[in-house]
């Protein structure tokens, strides 16, 4: 089982140095610390384990260190910044693991960019040696790239000439889209194994600043301070500790404080239920801070995130995730109102941004998502997003016969109208109503009100509203039918349908990862017996099928 929970005390590959307001994340990969056996992580190359630590560090820097306003990514190795993903590891991995690995690393890179853009915690990269492939892509995720001018340190994306695959962590998209490197320069850059150094790297905008070796540390610090000075983060705030999740894993179930997960292995289904909190909720900043990682919107999101990652990596054959909620919609409404009221405060801002990222991870999950809205549920505000994130939703019209519960209702809050955009930078409602943008306003007009099934259907918020006579069969058939389809075709179809609307850096990265990289990852030219990825490291030369497709 791949474990996503870690702590700086357990890191094998990264160290964090704090020199307020700057933190320095230093990479020194433990060669023998690979997640699996069969490869050595030489030259600061990485596997998923290295990235899990990075992901953890990025999260902790946001929540535990409000005083940190700029983060420097660098290497603690001499002459090597990072050699990218370990090729031997890729060669030994299943296709599913490769794809999951690429996706996770991309999500971590996006969270780095998110921190720079929204958290006032700007990442800069100090490339103090060779940065190849994923190593350079890591740098690309930061806002400012500094390269040591020692006559030998280079940046490179050698995947095409060396491995017959593509840079898998957004490299191609980021150089032309984010850094706006000219396409012909980019073409040349991506076809040479040795990379580009010095002045040319700077002139071509592959990096932002070239620094002599003897002045490197000093210049990096200067730049970090400049970025820190522009930060909106508070100077004297205290962070909150991201305590370990309270999680119990059993054969067919995972239980957290606010999220429960149950498997129906026979039918390939996971039932995920999110529970609203009981009792009094903090509404002022002091008590939110005191609650810290136990504050429901943060705790729930961390648990849901962990469940998504666990299911994505460790439960490949459970192809349909069915979401439910349980509890009082009023509680969710109070939470949403509290979050919106204090959204300028650093901690509340982080909590909202975190929910946003978790839901984005859900949007990107290669699983069919179904949301069931039943009596006793609380699909309000933040949790209402689960209805919009689903490929399909079913809402019971009325109640089950003999039940004495009140019928299920939906309720929107401000959280549905801006703070939780998708990768395409639109809200899920905007994406849903691309055809009829005014409908978003119709929904907004009902903000805070309970919407029953018929009205929700009329507003276009749910897919179907069976009554209790049809409910069981409709839901069962829909889920069973889905389980009979090709998982590949479903993943491709769902990913195509979920992200309507404009392209952004993130949608392009994930779209191209899925379409191009994953295709090339399957092709004999990469992974066949004569494929370049397969033969890398043996010294033998790849043989290509020369037909263009």
């Amino acid at each position: 089982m791949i474990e996503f929970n870690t702590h700086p005390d357990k890191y094998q590959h990264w160290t964090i140095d704090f020199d307020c307001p700057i933190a320095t994340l230093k990479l020194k990969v433990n060669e023998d610390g690979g997640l699996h056996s069969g490869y050595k992580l030489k030259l600061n190359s990485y596997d998923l384990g290295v990235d899990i630590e990075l992901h953890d560090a990025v999260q902790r820097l946001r929540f535990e260190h409000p005083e940190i306003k700029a983060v420097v990514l660098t290497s603690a190795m001499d002459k090597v910044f990072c050699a990218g993903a370990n090729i031997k590891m890729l060669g030994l991995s299943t296709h599913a693991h490769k794809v999951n690995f690429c996706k996770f690393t991309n999500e971590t890179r996006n969270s780095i960019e998110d921190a720079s853009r929204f958290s006032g915690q700007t990442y800069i990269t100090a490339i103090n040696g060779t940065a190849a492939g994923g190593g350079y892509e890591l740098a690309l995720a930061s806002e400012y790239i500094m390269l040591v001018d020692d006559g030998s340190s280079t940046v490179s994306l050698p995947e095409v000439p060396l491995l017959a695959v593509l840079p898998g962590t957004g490299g191609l998209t980021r150089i032309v889209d984010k850094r706006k490197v000219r396409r012909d320069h980019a073409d040349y850059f991506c076809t040479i194994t040795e990379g580009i150094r010095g002045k040319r790297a700077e002139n071509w905008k592959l990096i932002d600043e070239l620094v002599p070796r003897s002045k490197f540390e000093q210049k990096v610090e200067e730049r970090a301070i400049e970025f820190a000075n522009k930060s909106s983060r508070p100077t004297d705030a205290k962070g909150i500790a991201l305590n370990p999740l309270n999680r119990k894993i059993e054969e067919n179930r995972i239980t957290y404080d606010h999220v429960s997960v149950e498997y129906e292995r026979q039918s390939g289904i996971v039932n995920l239920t999110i529970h609203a909190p009981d009792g009094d909720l903090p509404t002022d900043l002091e008590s939110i801070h005191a609650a810290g990682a136990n504050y429901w919107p943060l705790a729930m999101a961390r648990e849901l995130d962990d469940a998504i990652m666990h299911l994505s990596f460790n439960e490949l054959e459970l192809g349909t995730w069915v979401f439910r909620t349980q509890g009082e919609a009023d509680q969710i409404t109070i939470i949403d109102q509290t979050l919106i009221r204090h959204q300028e405060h650093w901690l509340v801002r982080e909590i909202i941004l975190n929910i946003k990222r978790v839901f984005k991870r859900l949007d990107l999950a290669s699983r069919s998502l179904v949301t069931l809205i039943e009596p006793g549920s609380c699909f309000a505000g933040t949790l209402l997003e689960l209805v919009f994130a689903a490929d399909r939703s079913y809402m019971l019209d009325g109640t089950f016969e003999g039940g004495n519960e009140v019928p299920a209702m939906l309720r929107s809050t401000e959280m549905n109208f801006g703070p939780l955009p998708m990768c395409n930078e639109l809200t899920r409602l905007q994406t849903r109503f691309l055809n009829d943008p005014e409908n978003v306003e119709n929904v907004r007009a009902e903000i805070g009100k309970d919407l029953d099934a018929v009205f929700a259907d009329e507003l276009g918020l749910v897919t179907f509203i069976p009554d209790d006579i049809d409910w069981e069969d409709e839901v069962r058939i829909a889920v069973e039918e889905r389980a009979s389809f090709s998982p590949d075709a479903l993943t491709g179809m769902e990913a195509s349908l979920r992200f309507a609307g404009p392209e952004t850096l993130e949608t392009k990265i994930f779209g191209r990862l899925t379409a191009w990289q994953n295709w090339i990852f399957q092709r004999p030219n990469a992974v066949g017996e004569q494929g370049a990825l397969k033969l890398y490291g043996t010294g033998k030369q790849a043989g290509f099928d020369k037909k263009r497709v």
Partner: protein
Amino acid sequence: MKINYSEKIPNNVNLSSDRRLQRALERWQPGYLKWWDELGPEKSTGHEVYLRTAVSVEKEGWAHFDYVKMPDYRWGIFLTPSDSDRTINFGIHKGQPAWQEVPGEYRSELRRLIVTQGDTEPASVEQQRLLGKTCPSLYDLRNLFQVNVEEGRHLWAMVYLLQGYFGRDGREEAEAMLERHSGDPDKPRILEAFNEETPDWLSYFMFTYFTDRDGNFQLGSLAESGFDPLSRTCRFMLTEEAHHMFVGETGVGRIVQRACDLMKDHKTENTGATDGVRQYGGIDLETIQKYLNFHFSVSTDLFGQELSTNAATYYNTGIKGRFGETKINDDHLLHDSSYSILELNSEKIVNTEVPALNAVNERLRDDYIKDCDLGVRRWNKIIEDAGIDFRLKLPHRAFHRGIGQFSEIQTDPEGEIITQSEWDRRHSEWMPSQQDQAYVQSLMQPVTEPGKIAGWIAPPRGKINRHPFEYEFVRFN
């Protein structure tokens, strides 16, 4: 083929017929001369040095002797004559005609090899630039300068390949060769051993014995290359490299000889630093052993990782062979063969079989170590003949390593794994201590009168172009 001395840049590659290359080299030349002036042997521009200059690449004619001012030395481009039928001897292109142009698909690998090799040539000149001030004799000073100008010529040889075959990238790399400097905090030389100082003549002789021998083995492997111009260049460079190693071997041998002579003269059997030959101005055998340990270990690092993807690719694609490739009796493909290497396995050093293709570096290191041992035996012969009960010895390959798997551990010279704290406590038993270095440094007083020699080294037995030791090998102007 005769060397064309009528041109600005002497050569046997018919440079005058290639205007583009000629212009590129002529543009590079002033930068080179400026570099020589600034970072070549210090305050030497006026000296007239009795130097060997290549006048022809044929066996009889490549050594022509005369007095030369070093900046006027005819640095040129000489390749071993081409053999029009030469084929590639190993790897997947085995049996195909050797490449006369760089194959596009191997462009960057070839360039990297040439740059790495080329970078070492000016580096050693820079490392040795102050030694002229403390030469033990005119004979040794002349040998130092001979080595220096030839290293300069080897840079020319590599620059010719870069300029002649690699387009704009090659020209940029040629410029960069003059921009990186040994020990420069901003732009150091590529390989770490070439950023160390050569502070004294004992270090210099050790360097020419051990580190130049690495160069010899690298050139030997490149001489096997399927890229014919590289092969031909390296083959000619090897003839000169042999002299550099000779300087090292005889230099160390003469220091050993002097130590033995002093021990006999003063009837002491003490081979250590105290109460031994140091009292009489010699360098004791134990100190020589420590210098040997240091230089052997850092030179061993130059062969890279034990298991190397790059080395495997170089071999398989016919870019860089093994030392003496054509004399090895196997399939020259190595796709299915294995090779035995030493491996660090849960804190023990054990033998293990690995794919031969990935172990090409280690095989070269093995060849190198065997070759290093031959000279050590000759030094020991001197000690044995003097009736002294002491033998010099190469340390274990795991000792004091900075690259490869053994860099993670510490061992004693026998290869026994020890703790870091034991290393911290004992390393001055095995490596030159500050006191040892200060002592050796204190001996470095210049002797520049013809026929005279410093007291810590014996005079040479051999002659230079039939001129005895007393000859005025350098005229100071």
